[in-house]
């Protein structure tokens, strides 16, 4: 196989990988930072950085490495936001607060043909779920979404979060406990 053929194969594999993870990555970023525009920027930056740094690594390592970049960007965003809020507080500026905080799940049409009662329950659950995940501390949120949603194992999650496996277990366990408490009424 020629070098160009290998390049095209890698590009195609990257395309499939990114197409698979990009929506969940966007949603994770949106839950973490609150606004769709910021989440889109973070997801796009993560994709660019991932391709630049890790495209040549084995495909099996891509997922934790991609999420490592994304989570790192999200953490950086929170740090910058904290500094910005402090400056705003010191200089007496009043933030507008509710910029683009709309609930995306409430604005999308449901085309699955559920009954109104099921729709209401589902919408309630979606809304409650989003609130519950957002209420988790950032590290617990990251551990919960990477383990429970993205399906990473403990070692991969530790790589993605840049911490030890023991920390992942602690964060995840606390997150599940909190989520069960917050969403207890929706448990079947």
């Amino acid at each position, binding site marked *: 196989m020629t070098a160009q053929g290998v*390049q095209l194969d*890698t*590009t195609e594999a*990257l*395309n499939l990988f*990114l*197409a698979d993870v*990009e*929506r*969940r990555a*966007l*949603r994770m970023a949106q839950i973490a930072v609150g606004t*769709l525009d910021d989440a*889109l920027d973070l*997801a*796009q*930056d993560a*994709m*660019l950085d*991932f*391709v*630049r740094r890790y*495209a040549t690594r084995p495909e099996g390592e891509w997922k934790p490495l991609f999420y490592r970049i994304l989570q790192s960007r999200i953490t950086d965003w929170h740090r*910058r936001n904290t500094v910005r809020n402090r400056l705003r507080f010191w200089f007496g500026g009043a933030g507008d607060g509710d910029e683009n905080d709309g609930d*995306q*799940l409430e604005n*999308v*049409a*449901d085309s699955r043909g559920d009954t109104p009662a099921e729709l209401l329950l*589902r919408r309630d*659950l*979606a809304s409650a*779920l*989003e609130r519950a995940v957002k209420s988790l501390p950032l590290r617990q949120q990251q551990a919960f*979404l990477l383990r*429970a*949603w993205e399906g990473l194992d403990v070692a991969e999650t530790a790589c993605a979060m840049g911490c030890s496996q023991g920390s992942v277990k602690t964060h995840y366990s606390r997150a*599940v406990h909190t*989520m*069960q408490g917050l*969403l207890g009424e*929706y*448990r*079947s």
Partner: protein
Amino acid sequence: MNIDKREKEFLQRIKQELDCGVEQLDPVTLARLKSGRMRALEKAHTGGWRFGDIPRWVTAGGFATVTVAVVAVSLWSAAPRRNMVAAHPEDTEIVASQEQFDLYDDLEFYRWLAENGDAR
């Protein structure tokens, strides 16, 4: 039903709900995501990086740092050196030799004396 099984079902339900939210992203958002992916893949294909690829906050921060550094260096180099008593080596010699001070204090008198003394 044991606790593990209930927890597994609970997490499965949450996963389904999160998946539903992702499936219902609006077309504009999906187009923007795809555009970002294509840009990233273009980089993989060409392998090149341009100045414009640097995030804006990095360029803005870098520009601010360079500006502050330039201003600081120019202020430092333009400031008068007040702590330097003598700017030239001969001045240093004058300052160092204490016994010469009287001569320099009365320099005008000695100059007048020399001029007028010769005249007489």
